[in-house]
Structures are given as structure tokens and as C-alpha cells.
């Protein structure tokens, strides 16, 4: 699969470099700490948060257990609404399909709204090879593109840049891609936003082809949903004549009604808002309003391998809110680039080794990029037990065993004595030897965790032999779930507003 950041060292080496970069750490610390408190406040407004979270998890589980059914349904509803559905088994397949679709329009430029799926498959590079220029229009993606950089956060790919660095990138690079930055640009966020507005306006107004992802696809109605803030999404979804959406197969939800859960969970978890500024939904094409041609490319690229693992499957519930990154002590110190894929942080540590397998040194080291503190699980709006998957993947790395590889059952060789094991050991040592990571981890864990092995499997074992793992929490999500849902004796939530 493509989308690997080529030449990336395994997690511990990359993390060691970023922990030394004090500016990067300061930027990350500032941004993640700001959002943590806000997220907590936004979540506290909803008395039924835990029930919404349980419903979100249950809807996703239902979908995943019957994914073939919902995908076929989605295909028929999108087609009936005037869209064209394409299927892509892997990144190469998807890139080829999209390139051909763009070529068929005769256009050489496309505008793009931020999409993790296209980042994952390396679409921009594939288009560039075919002589097609893709303009990123999300502010943070623009910063990354202009800076010839890599994204380091799911929601805010340029989180590693502070306002002064952004000002410098705009001032020096905008002219190469189109309209230059205004004279004397300051580093006030409002001025930077204005500079982006001016730079991208012509591109939007002239765009003939838009490329997007989607946050949700509704099987019942054929509706796609994009959740955003800036309006660049709306520009890409409504002004071009042709719209191509590349979406992972796990993004389907069964019914229109299911959106009532996710449109409450997502904004509060990601930007800590009651609602994000703009959400667009569209069903096929609409006469006279928006694109005349709509293509949906359904992407597998390792998702079915993830689905085949009954422990790891829950990673496919992910709605890419990035809450787990923002609370992660390892992410805060290591930075997003150390994870070597489009998916940094805790979700990256469990998703990348499942999508790509654990054969490379980098991917084998990812499950060790954690202190297992459990903060990620507590904030995850779809209750993915990230530590459980981390431990499971550590076992797979060290002991090997059966796994699905590109849709075929295979037996993974144990990494013992291999470079992969050494990388994994170094990652474990890195995460565990950082006092700051551990302190933060323990503080959070003492509040929260139930899933809690007394001894870590694999390389972590030696470490747990000499240290106690943090204490078991009072009432974690699963217990709460059992207590309130297990016996039909449900507690009523109180209202806050």
C-alpha cells in the first residue's frame, strides 16, 4: 500500500527527534491542552453523553457486522439518486480510478477538501504523476502543502506549526501556488485566515472538479455527510461540475436517523463545539444545484483485514474526531510525524498496523507507542478500547499468529530476533522511559481504566516485572454500560440546560 511516509524511521527514533524539538513540543502542548478543557466542557453539557457514546458504538458495530449488506444498499441508493459508485480494493486501485475520472473531464486542476482517505492513499502524488495539480483548501492542509510538509494531526494537520511559522510559510510560498500573501502579513490568526481566503478564492470560483472524503454515508438514503468549519468544504462540494468522493467502506451508517447520534458526538469531541460551523449533506445529484456528476469511490485498502480481526475490528468504528490524540501523553511528546502515516496518535497506533500489517519496523513499533494509560479510550466518542487493541497487536508482533493480509488468511511470523522486534523494544522503552509520559499516563489512568493487564505481554513484560501498573479506576465505561444497560434497569439522565 502507498501512503507510507517513505524513509520514516521506526517510532522510537522519530519520537526521539521530535522530543528534542522544543518548539514542536511547545506548539503541540499549547494546542492540545487548550482543546482538552474545551472538549470536556462541551461534553459535560450533554447529560446523556455516555448513552450517546454507547449508541454510537452499537450503531457502528451493527454496521460492521453486516458491512456487505450496508455497502450493497448504499451502492443502490447512491446510484438511484444519480451518483456513480466505484470500488477500490487498495490505494493503487483508488488512485487509478480517481485519476481516470479527472482525466475524463479534461481538467488539469482539482480542488480538494481535507480527507484522511485521500491522504492515506497518497492521492495528490498519484495525480501529480498524471500531470494533475491538486489544491488543498483546508487551512491546515494548505499550510502543510505550501510548507512541503507532512500532516501531524487528524483534525489540524499543521498543529505542529505556530502562528509565526504559518505567517512565514504564507509569505514565502503562496506566490508559487497562486495569489501571493498580502504585503506585510502579520501573524494574527484573523489575518492568516484572511490570507487563505484571498489565496483560495480564485481557485474555488474556477474549479471544475472537486475531490472530497466524507464523514458518514447513509445506506438507507444514499446521503453523504461532510462536517467542516471553514466553508472550503462547501466550496468544493457545490461549485465544481464534477465531484469525486473517496470514502473508506467503514464510513457507512445504516439509517438517516443514526446521524442524530454522530452529529452530536463528533463536533463536541473534535473541535469541542456544540456544532461545527458547516455540515453539508447531499444525496446523489440535484438538478441545477451543485455538481452535475457525482462519483463515489469506496475504499478497502486494508479495512477488510482489520474487519477480520475480532479484537481489532472496533478500530473501524473511528469517526476521526482526534480526541484521542489531544489527550495522549505520548502523542504530545512524540508529535504526529513519528507515527509515519496519515493517522497519528493512539488511533494511528492501532489502525496503521492493521491497515498495513506489522511487517515493517515502523509498523511493528507502533503498538508500543503508548503507555497504556487509557485516556484515549475514555474520550473516544465511539468507545474504542484502544489499549486492548494495542496489547493485542503487541502480541501479534512478538508471537505472530493468524491474520488477514490483503483479504487472504496468513500466518504472521513472530518478530523475535528480527529488526521489527528490536524496533518494538525501542519504542516500548521510549514510551516507558519518559517520566513525563508516565506521570501523565498514571494520573489519567488512576482516574479511569479498567482494562488493565498486570503484566504487559511481549517486550513490555520485562518492564512490568519491576514496576506496578497504575491502579484500577472507579467506574469505567464498560462497567457503567453493564450496570445501566445490562439488567434493563436503566438510570435516567439529568438535564443540564
Amino acid at each position, binding site marked *: 500500500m502507498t501512503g507510507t511516509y517513505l524513509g520514516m524511521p521506526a517510532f522510537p527514533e522519530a519520537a526521539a527527534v521530535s522530543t528534542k524539538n522544543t518548539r514542536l513540543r511547545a506548539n503541540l502542548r499549547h494546542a492540545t491542552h487548550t482543546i482538552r478543557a474545551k472538549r470536556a466542557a462541551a461534553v459535560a453539557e450533554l*447529560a446523556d453523553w455516555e*448513552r450517546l457514546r454507547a449508541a454510537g458504538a452499537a450503531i457502528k458495530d451493527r454496521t460492521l457486522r453486516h458491512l456487505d*449488506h450496508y455497502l450493497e444498499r448504499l451502492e443502490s441508493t447512491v446510484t438511484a439518486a444519480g451518483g456513480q459508485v466505484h470500488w477500490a480494493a487498495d490505494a493503487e486501485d483508488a488512485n487509478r480510478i480517481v485519476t481516470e475520472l479527472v482525466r475524463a473531464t479534461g481538467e488539469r486542476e482539482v480542488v480538494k477538501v481535507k480527507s484522511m482517505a485521500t491522504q492515506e492513499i497518497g492521492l495528490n502524488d498519484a495525480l501529480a504523476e498524471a500531470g494533475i495539480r491538486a489544491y488543498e483548501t483546508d487551512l491546515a492542509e494548505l499550510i502543510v502543502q505550501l510548507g512541503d510538509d507532512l500532516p501531524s494531526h487528524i483534525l489540524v494537520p499543521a498543529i505542529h506549526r505556530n502562528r509565526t511559522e504559518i505567517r512565514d510559510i504564507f509569505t514565502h510560498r503562496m506566490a508559487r501556488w497562486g495569489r501571493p500573501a498580502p504585503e506585510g502579513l502579520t501573524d494574527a490568526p484573523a489575518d492568516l485566515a484572511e490570507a487563505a481566503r484571498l489565496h483560495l478564492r480564485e481557485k474555488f470560483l474556477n474549479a471544475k472538479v472537486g475531490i472530497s472524503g466524507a464523514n458518514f454515508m447513509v445506506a438507507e438514503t444514499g446521503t453523504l455527510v461532510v462536517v467542516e468549519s471553514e466553508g472550503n468544504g462547501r466550496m468544493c462540494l457545490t461549485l465544481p461540475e464534477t465531484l469525486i468522493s473517496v470514502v473508506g467502506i467503514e464510513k457507512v451508517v445504516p439509517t438517516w436517523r443514526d446521524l442524530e447520534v454522530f452529529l452530536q458526538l463528533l463536533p463536541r469531541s473534535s473541535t469541542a463545539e*456544540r456544532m461545527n460551523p458547516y*455540515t453539508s449533506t447531499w444525496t446523489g445529484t440535484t438538478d441545477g444545484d451543485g455538481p452535475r456528476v457525482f462519483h463515489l469511490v469506496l475504499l478497502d485498502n486494508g479495512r477488510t483485514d482489520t474487519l477480520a480481526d475480532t479484537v481489532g475490528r472496533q478500530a473501524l468504528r473511528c469517526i476521526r474526531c482526534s480526541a484521542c490524540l489531544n489527550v495522549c501523553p505520548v502523542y504530545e511528546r512524540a508529535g504526529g510525524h513519528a507515527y509515519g502515516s496519515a493517522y497519528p496518535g493512539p488511533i494511528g497506533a492501532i489502525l496503521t498496523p492493521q491497515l498495513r500489517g506489522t511487517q515493517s519496523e515502523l509498523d511493528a513499533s507502533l503498538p508500543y507507542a503508548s503507555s497504556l494509560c487509557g485516556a484515549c479510550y475514555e474520550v473516544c466518542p465511539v468507545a474504542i478500547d484502544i489499549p486492548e487493541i494495542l496489547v493485542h497487536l503487541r502480541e501479534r508482533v512478538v508471537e505472530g499468529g493468524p491474520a488477514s493480509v490483503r483479504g487472504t488468511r496468513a500466518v504472521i511470523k513472530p518478530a523475535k530476533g528480527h529488526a521489527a522486534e528490536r524496533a518494538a523494544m525501542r519504542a516500548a522503552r521510549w514510551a516507558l522511559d519518559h517520566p513525563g509520559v508516565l506521570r501523565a499516563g498514571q494520573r489519567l489512568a488512576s482516574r479511569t481504566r479498567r482494562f488493565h493487564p498486570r503484566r504487559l505481554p511481549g517486550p513490555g513484560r520485562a518492564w512490568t516485572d519491576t514496576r506496578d501498573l497504575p491502579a484500577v479506576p472507579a467506574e469505567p465505561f464498560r462497567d457503567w454500560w453493564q450496570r445501566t444497560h445490562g439488567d434493563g434497569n436503566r438510570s435516567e*439522565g439529568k438535564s443540564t440546560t
Partner: protein
Amino acid sequence: MSSRDLVLARVRRALADVPRTERPSDAPVDRDYLRAHGDRTTEQTVDLLAENLADYRAIVHRTDAAGLPALIARLLAGRGATSVVVPPGLPAEWLSATDPEEVARIPDTPELTPHDLDAVSSVVTGCAVAVAETGTVVLDAGPDQGRRRITLVPDHHICVIKVPEQVVDSVPQALERLAPERPLTWISGPSATSDIELDRVEGVHGPRTLEVVLVEG
């Protein structure tokens, strides 16, 4: 094998642990979350909407049907607007106090290009529904709202909400009222970004000024 068949075959193989007899509806989904948060009178719900809209930097005005035309005229004049996009089904009286000599009416027609729209000062629309708990207005491209692009390209959007009939408490209640086959735009405050140091800044690509008029009766 086509990619379609390949992907679907992989999915089925991956789900070998799911009993063949299990139907999608057998997988339990409890919907015991709340339909709305809190107990409010209709009036309080409208107040909450106004409060949450303002919290995300929408400028909120309140008036009655008789006062609406003058208010809209005042808002357009206050912006120094020289032109306004008009959706095909916008009630004529809404703009009856606005002098067409001063503020040119631009009807929303398919001939209107994005560049044309970029040269227009303002847009006035109604809405489909508004959500009090989140401070959201939802447009469904109905006759008094027009095509999605007319509320996107101009820099100033005046959106009229009929209260209380167009106001609901919550996201679940809003979805019940909306038709999935229509293209929807959910708007919560003016365009904004959290991309610089994860802090919200208003004003990127969508209208930088969102004025919401709550009109009674």
C-alpha cells in the same frame, strides 16, 4: 474478479464469526439517549437559540412580521450593500422596504456564475429549521433559500427564522423534520477555523458575517 466483487468477498470472509442467521437488526442498538436536553418553554427554547447563535458570533436580531422589511433594509444599508441575491421564493414583502435603486436585486438563476456571486454584497434567505441546543440553522435549498452556493459565496448572509414554528430543541428533532433527498447545509455561526493553534477564529471562506433574524408571528 472486479474490485467490487473482491471487496465484498473480503468483507464476507472477514465476517466469518458472525452467525449466518444473524440479521442486521439483530445487532442491538439502544436509543436510550435523550431526544432533547432540558425542559424548556417554547419561549425559553427560542431564547436558547438566540444565545447559542450569538455564542458562535452570529449577529442575532428579533422582530415581528411587521418590522421585518424595515429591519432587513437597515441591515443591508448598515453593510453598505449595493446588491442582494434573492432566492426565487423569498416572500416579496421581506425586501419591500429596501430600495431597489440602492440595493440591486439579483435573482438566483442557474446563469449566475460563481464569479457573479462573488461580486454580490449580500444574500437574504429563510431556513428549513433551527436547532436551539446547538445554535444551528439548517437550509434545505427550499424556494425561500435557493441554491446552496448563494449562501456561500457572498460575504454577508441574512437568514430569517420564523419563531417559534421553525425552532426545535435538538439535533434528533431537526433530523426528523428534514428530507434526506434534499441537499442540506447546517450553519452554526459564520465560517471559522480551528486550524491555527486549535483556537477558533471566525471568517474564512464562507460568509464572514452571519445575521440571523428571529421573526415572530
